[in-house]
Structures are given as structure tokens and as C-alpha cells.
């Protein structure tokens, strides 16, 4: 038997072009795409036919027609004469406002409770655990409804209230606080405030340089406080106190004057913060625990004080672990703010559903919702990817 015949490839029966992985993968992908395109076309076709059959107008033109309804909370001027488009903008702004407020409070709550869960104090630990375990396991919608219907609604009404000396009232119409009306010269105090901040920053920078150069450290806290708070107050007094407080007063129906924070906002804000705070607490706890005990011990052994060890060693390491999940919690909070619909807080989804209902343009409204939320989510995840790659610990 010669080598030549031996090495002749044996033909395998039934070899087929379909057995080539490249061909296969192309066939699969092309059929998938064809299927999807077909499916999409089928949906669009159906939708168009359905819309035509029901005689429903489509397109985004409706955004420029008169809205005709009022919105309860309007961060920018809005009347019922404005357009649907502007109503939706109000909704977006309200979404951003509630998200920002919620994120701020949830972060504070989460950090306090997260650190509390690691406290040496049994009571604090137990309280924190109870909080986390309760609120992580309850739907956020329920928490919102609880605040709105269970707590705020059953407060007493605004009429027949005893007058409060500090002008702060909590009623079933919300929280009413005095507002400050500034006089003409008030700009000087604002300017002083800004100047104070700038000066404090400059001094802090100088101190830092000084410290690097000589090793000495000067306390900055009091100087900074004096600059940032004292200076404006001083200017304020010197310019003759150019502001008056406007206290809420009862009129026939409501408390008028001052600033009113509506119960819809309060309920949504508290509920979102408390709900998200429970998750943030877990993230913070995990972040701190991810910094090994050894790191703390090493810092102590070097003579760093507890505060210094926290600031220089533990926190920078914990933050790398905390920030990515924290951002996704922030995103969740923003998405959950859409539950404002349930209590009538006019955020994007609530306003959108009113518009949807008044104009009947369901497809367009749903598209607007999705586009807005997707924009927010995607920009945040791009930021996160960038952040993660920047902050990753260097490893071999």
C-alpha cells in the first residue's frame, strides 16, 4: 500500500455545504434577520391597517396642539393654553426633579443604614437590618400608596389649624413652609456667599500645598465656615436685612403663601428614597465589607487614626465596589419614579398618560416614554463603563 493512496482523504458520505460553519452561521443570521424584518413589517402593516380601520390619526403633530388641561406641579410656567409638547416637557422635568430629590435622600439613608448594619452597637445593627429586610421585600408601589393613602391622607385638613409660630404646617395638603422674599440688595449677600466659597477653596488649596511642602497641617474647618456662612450673614446684616419671610396663612380653603410641598411629591419622594435606600444600604455594606479587615489593621498599625484610616484607606477602596451598583440603583429609582402615576404626581408617565388619553395617540406617547428613559439609561451606562475602566484596580 503506497503512502499516496493512504493519505488520500477518505470521502465522508453526504458532505454538504450546510456543514460549513461559516455558511451555517450566515444562513442562520440571514434567516434570523429576514424573519425579524418580516415580523416587524408584519407588525407595522397590521398597525397601519388597524389605525386606518379605526380612523385614528398618527404622527407627532399632536404635540403642537393645545393641551387644555392643567398640571398640578409645574417647575416652569405652564397653563392649559400650552401645547401637549410642553406638557410632556413638564413631565420630564418633574421626573428629573423627583429623581434628583429621591437620589439625594436615598443615598443619605442608604449610607447611614449601611454603616449602621456594620455598627458594633447591637440596637443600631438590629434596627438597620429590620429596615433593610422589610423594605427590600415590599413592592415600591405599595410603599408609595402607603405614604399617600395610609399616612398623608389621614392628616388633618388645613382649616382650623392652630397657628404655628415657625410657620411650618403639615396637613393633608402637604407641607407648607415660609418662603423668603428677597429685597433689592439681596444680591450682595449672594455675591458674598459665592466669594466665601471661592475664598474657602483657595485657602484649602493653599493649605494642601503647604502641607505637602512642610508636613504641617492647619485646621481649615472654622475658617471655611466663617467664610462661607459668616461672610454672607455679615453682608446681609450690613445691607439692612433685605428679605422678608412670607408665612403661610389660612385662606378660605387652603393655606396660602409660603412654599407648598404637595403630598403627592412627599409620598413619592419618601417612598422612593426609603425603598431604594434599603438597596443602597446593602451595597454600602458589601462595599465596606469588601475592604478586608487587614486593610484596617494595617492602617492602625501604621499609626493612622480611625478617621484617617477611613478616609485614606477604606473609603477609596469601598467606593470602587460601591459605585457601579449604586448607579444602577439610581437608574432604578429614576425608572421607579414612573409610579408617580399612581398618586397623581405629574411626572413623565403620568402626564404622558393624560396626553395619551386626551389625544388618543397611544403609539406616539409610548415611543416618547421609551425614548426618554432609554436616553437616560444609556447615557448613564456609558458613563459607568468609562468610570469603571478608569477606576479599576491595577492588577497583574
Amino acid at each position, binding site marked *: 500500500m503506497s503512502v499516496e493512496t493512504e493519505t488520500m482523504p477518505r470521502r465522508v458520505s453526504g458532505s454538504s455545504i450546510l456543514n460549513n460553519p461559516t455558511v451555517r452561521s450566515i444562513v442562520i443570521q440571514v434567516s434570523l434577520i429576514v424573519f425579524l424584518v418580516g415580523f416587524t413589517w408584519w407588525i407595522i402593516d397590521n398597525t397601519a391597517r388597524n389605525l386606518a380601520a*379605526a380612523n385614528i390619526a398618527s404622527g407627532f403633530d399632536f404635540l403642537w396642539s393645545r393641551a387644555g388641561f392643567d398640571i398640578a406641579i409645574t417647575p416652569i410656567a405652564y397653563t392649559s393654553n400650552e401645547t401637549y409638547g410642553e406638557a410632556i416637557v413638564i413631565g420630564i422635568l418633574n421626573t428629573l426633579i423627583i429623581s434628583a430629590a429621591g437620589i439625594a435622600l436615598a443615598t443619605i439613608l442608604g449610607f447611614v443604614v449601611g454603616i449602621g448594619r456594620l455598627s458594633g452597637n447591637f440596637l443600631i445593627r438590629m434596627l438597620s437590618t429590620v429596615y433593610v429586610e422589610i423594605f427590600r421585600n415590599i413592592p415600591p408601589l405599595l410603599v408609595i400608596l402607603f405614604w399617600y393613602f395610609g399616612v398623608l391622607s389621614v392628616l388633618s385638613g388645613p382649616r382650623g389649624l392652630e397657628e404655628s409660630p415657625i410657620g411650618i404646617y403639615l396637613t393633608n395638603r402637604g407641607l407648607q413652609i415660609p418662603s423668603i422674599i428677597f429685597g433689592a440688595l439681596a444680591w450682595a449677600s449672594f455675591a458674598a456667599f459665592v466669594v466665601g466659597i471661592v475664598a474657602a477653596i483657595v485657602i484649602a488649596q493653599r493649605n494642601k500645598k503647604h502641607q505637602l511642602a512642610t508636613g504641617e497641617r492647619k485646621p481649615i474647618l472654622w475658617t471655611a465656615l466663617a467664610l462661607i456662612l459668616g461672610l454672607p450673614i455679615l453682608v446681609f446684616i450690613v445691607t439692612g436685612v433685605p428679605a422678608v419671610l412670607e408665612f403661610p396663612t389660612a385662606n*378660605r380653603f387652603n393655606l396660602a403663601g409660603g412654599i407648598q410641598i404637595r403630598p403627592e411629591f412627599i409620598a413619592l419622594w419618601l417612598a422612593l428614597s426609603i425603598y431604594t435606600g434599603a438597596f443602597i444600604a446593602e451595597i454600602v455594606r458589601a462595599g465596606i465589607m469588601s475592604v478586608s479587615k487587614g486593610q484596617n489593621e494595617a492602617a492602625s498599625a501604621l499609626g493612622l487614626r480611625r478617621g484617617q484610616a477611613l478616609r485614606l484607606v477604606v473609603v477609596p477602596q469601598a467606593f470602587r465596589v460601591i459605585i457601579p451598583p449604586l448607579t444602577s440603583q439610581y437608574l432604578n429609582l429614576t425608572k421607579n419614579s414612573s409610579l408617580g402615576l399612581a398618586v397623581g404626581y405629574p411626572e413623565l408617565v403620568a402626564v404622558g398618560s393624560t396626553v395619551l388619553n386626551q389625544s388618543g395617540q397611544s403609539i406616539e406617547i409610548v415611543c416618547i416614554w421609551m425614548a426618554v428613559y432609554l436616553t437616560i439609561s444609556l447615557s448613564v451606562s456609558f458613563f459607568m463603563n468609562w468610570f469603571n475602566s478608569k477606576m479599576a484596580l491595577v492588577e497583574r
Partner: protein
Amino acid sequence: QTLDTVKERGQLRCGVNTGLPGFASQNDQGAWQGLDVDYCKAVAAAVFGDASKVQYSPLSAVQRFPALQNNEIDMLARNTTWTMDRDTTLGLAFAGVNYYDGQGFMVKKDLGVNSALELSGATVCVQSGTTTELNLADYFRTNKMDYNPVVIEAQSDVNSAYDSGRCDVLTTDASGLAASRLEMASPENHVILPEIISKEPLGPAVRQGDSQWFNIVKWTHNALLDAEELGVTQENVDEMMTSENPEIRRLLGQDKDFGASIGLSKDWAVNIIKAVGNYGEIFERNIGVNTPLEIQRGQNALWTKGGLQYGMPIR
């Protein structure tokens, strides 16, 4: 072709309010009752001769039009205001007006308010996505008054927000106000203000483009009115079959088969009246003065009695 589908399914799908006493609400046994519900029953009786073949879909204000557009229901009998916008761009067709209504206000008695024009600065509870919401904005605007809107999606939630003191004023259709007052913890503490700020013709609606089905609903409504006008009631309908009055004979299908022209049986109107009575009976049974709602016929009296209800002649 809606008629075919309905017949094939053996049930009429009827969209109703999620709960508005007198118009559509569930009793303790879960059975639906009310003026709108009776309209559903009437259509079912006309189609099947059996008023119980209805499947009710309780719908919120936001859901009602999509539900109709998406074929989830065959007709919408849910105190819906007939407006041009809805008639044209939303693809609805209103089959008639089963209740002439207007938007009003209700306030707590102890506020001492006597007129809607005193309401400047008040907090007003209103359902979202309704004509009510639009009228409210317009009314306060034209009268140069301020208000705080509290906009909530379901009418029952609007009511409870008002009752718990979240708002000073509740606004909705006057009939709705009467119904809502019953839902208050103490109905006697609330007054309905005299102003009626809008026209709210409420009526059953169907999808556009199916004229046969549209006719069925439209003529069911007319038959109910004609029956009242002719004095045909649930009680006497059998006797009336033998009546000499040509109008009654036409209504009850004794002379000519009008049912065939809308794809129904000859005794379609008889079935309707046997099932639910005539319009007047429906009215009195559900919302009339002898019910807790205590609503007068008023504008809803027959044209012969100074009202607006006018049944088109069957001939």
C-alpha cells in the same frame, strides 16, 4: 362583521365603568347593575334574546378608548361624553345620548360655599384624561380664578381623595356627583353647587366603520325611547303585542320585520323591553328619585315632557 363575531362568541363584550353607582357598579354578589349596564343588557337582548349574555369589562378612563379600538370590547357603555374630537380622530361612533349631563361641583357643607364662583384658591379633585379635566381648566381660566388640581386616574380614587380631605372640591358630571356623594362616609355633609359648567352628552359608543353594528346599538337606544313614549313597559309588553296602535305594532315587529334590516330577529325590540324595560323604567330603576341618587328626569325627560330625549321613529 362585529355582529358575526359577537354571535359566534355567544357573548357581548361591553365596556363599563369600574364603579359608578347608578350607572355601572357591582353588587355584593358581583352582579353588574346600572343605567349603562342596562344598555349592555338591552343590546345583548336584541342580539341574542337573552340579556345575560354579556361579559362586562370594567374600564378606567384611560383604558376605555384603546379597549374599543383594539377590539377588546364590542361596545362602550361607560358615561362617555360625545365630543367631536372623539367622534373623528379617535375612531369612535356614538350611537346616541342616553344621559344628558353637565359638569358640576361638589363641596363640603361646612365650607359655606354657595357658588362655583367662590372657589378661587380651592383644591380640586378631578379624574385624569377626561373632558372634565379640560372643562375645569377652561372654567377657572375664563373666570380668572386659581385652583390646585389634584389629578387622579380612577374615579373611585378621586372620590376617596376628596372624602379624606385632600381636596375642597370634587368635580365631575352632575350625575356622577350624585353617585359619588353616596360613596362618601357621610353623604349629608356634601352639597352639589348649582353651576353646570359644560354640556356632557353621555352615550354608548362603538367602533367606526361597521355600520350594521352601529345601527344595532343606535336603534336599541331609539327603541327604548320609543317604548317609553308609546307606553310600552316590561309589564305590559305582552299585552301590547296585540295593540292596534300602528306605531306600537311596528316597534314590536308585528307589522313589518324591521329587525331584518339590522340583522336581528323580528322581535328584537320585544326582547329588549322584556329584558330591561323602556328608557323611563331604566332611568327610574337605576338613578331616579326613588333611588339613593335621587336624580330628577330634568333634561332627560322625553321631548313630550319638556326634556331632550327624542326617540327616532321606527318606520
